[in-house]
């Protein structure tokens, strides 16, 4: 009962914390925000993202002098899918500007991701709810210029940054001692699409797009987890111009990963949110793959699952 009771109290305290803080509070005292003009070539924008160690950036349309949503890995997935459907359009892809990404979305028939946004002085709780509703993993903070009433992207908040802010500032995370297997939503075993190292990377990219997931686990013939292909890996693939080699295996595609990649996080059903939050506090954890004693893949816990549980679980 004690653990049950502490879990409820801990979750309640974290909820109150999220309701009492604003997105503005998460922002450092000074920070940089990189914005890309939509008339940039997609290829150039990729170079800028990689050079600045970022995987997403707000877009600025200098015709309308307004913000035009966020550039994310999904856009590069769409470009690869477009090239796969229309290989003769190689030149068009090479000359594609950020303005043209919406046409690519229409051409491959994928629904345009509506970028939800929120005012910086709304509560963190509301920002989390909006992100979960829009299935987005990041949300632009939008205010307006006091004089011209033009919108300003103040920053872009990610689920990871919010959970890290909670892990750093909420000591009640230490009270979350219930094992994952007993947590509804986190311990629930999901039907996950997997692949092997020999699977052509284009098939994995199709899975990322059609399942709207940000990673596909790679297992061996006994079902043991051996690696993961993530949506952000696409940037390195496109940067290397390797997207044209469509029967490239996912094992080979992963060789493009930067040397400083920190590795894939795994856990078991006996782990707890207290130690998961402590790991988020210390390292860049983007998801956790649940494995059994033999290392076989059981399920996955995403940051959305953790936020969902914190906001609506128990």
């Amino acid at each position, binding site marked *: 009962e004690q653990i049950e009771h502490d879990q409820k109290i801990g979750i309640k305290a974290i909820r109150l914390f999220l309701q009492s803080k604003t997105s503005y509070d998460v922002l450092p005292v000074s920070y940089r925000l990189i914005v890309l*003009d939509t008339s940039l070539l997609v290829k150039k924008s990729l170079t800028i993202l990689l050079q600045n160690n970022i995987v997403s950036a707000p877009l600025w349309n200098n015709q309308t002098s307004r913000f035009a949503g966020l550039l994310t890995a999904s856009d590069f997935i769409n470009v690869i899918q477009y090239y796969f459907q229309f290989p003769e359009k190689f030149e068009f892809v090479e000359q594609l500007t950020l303005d043209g990404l919406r046409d690519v979305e229409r051409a491959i028939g994928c629904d345009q991701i509506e970028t939800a946004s929120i005012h910086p002085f709304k509560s963190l709780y509301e920002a989390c709810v909006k992100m979960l509703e829009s299935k987005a993993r990041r949300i632009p903070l939008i205010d307006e210029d006091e004089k011209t009433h*033009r919108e300003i992207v103040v920053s872009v908040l990610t689920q990871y940054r919010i959970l890290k802010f909670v892990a750093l500032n909420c000591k009640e995370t230490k009270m979350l001692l219930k094992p994952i297997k007993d947590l509804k939503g986190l311990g629930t075993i999901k039907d996950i699409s997997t692949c092997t190292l020999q699977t052509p990377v284009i098939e994995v990219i199709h899975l990322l797009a059609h399942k709207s997931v940000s990673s596909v686990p790679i297992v061996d013939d006994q079902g043991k987890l051996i690696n993961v292909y993530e949506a952000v890996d696409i940037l390195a693939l496109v940067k290397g111009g390797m997207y044209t080699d469509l029967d490239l295996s996912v094992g080979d595609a992963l060789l493009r*990963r930067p040397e400083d990649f920190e590795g894939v996080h795994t856990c078991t059903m006996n782990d707890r949110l207290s130690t998961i939050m402590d790991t988020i506090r210390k390292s860049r954890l983007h998801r956790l793959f649940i494995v059994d004693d033999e290392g076989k893949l059981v399920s996955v816990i995403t940051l959305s699952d953790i936020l969902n549980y914190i906001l609506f679980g128990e």
Partner: protein
Amino acid sequence: SQLPTSTIAILPSSLPSIHRAFMMELNPNQLSSNINPTPTKKSKTRWHFGIRSRSYPLDVMGEIYRALKNLGAEWAKPTEEELWTIRVRWKYESGDAMQENTPNLMKMQIQLFQLEPNNYLVDFKFDGWETSTGTPQDSFKQDLDEVGSFSAYPFLHLATRLIMELAVNS
């Protein structure tokens, strides 16, 4: 830490060096050998204030006035004591229909500084908004420092256009 034991771990086979060794073993003479990792060293972006010029000061000023003219900007007649400062006013076209009282004349100050003999710097500074009636409404007089939320993007955009006009001309 007093946290309970945890079985959270990093999957060893997902570390790039181990994955690479694994792939080489899997198919030694294959493609794997010449697929290189994305470089992690980020070429440090070098920032400088304004733009540099080694031309003669009068040439620089001439280039700037020519560029402003090509871009349809207006400027105040320079005063004797501020020959190296240009007070610009620029109609900021923005496609979307903003509210009628939205100021759309951006003011900018462009000033030439000498860093050392024949090394000059052109600095660009935002200088407030005006409505097209031309009278700076006193509410805009409010000192920029008090403004709590200000979008630099229109200013950055016009500065970009001016710098590109200068780059293309030169």
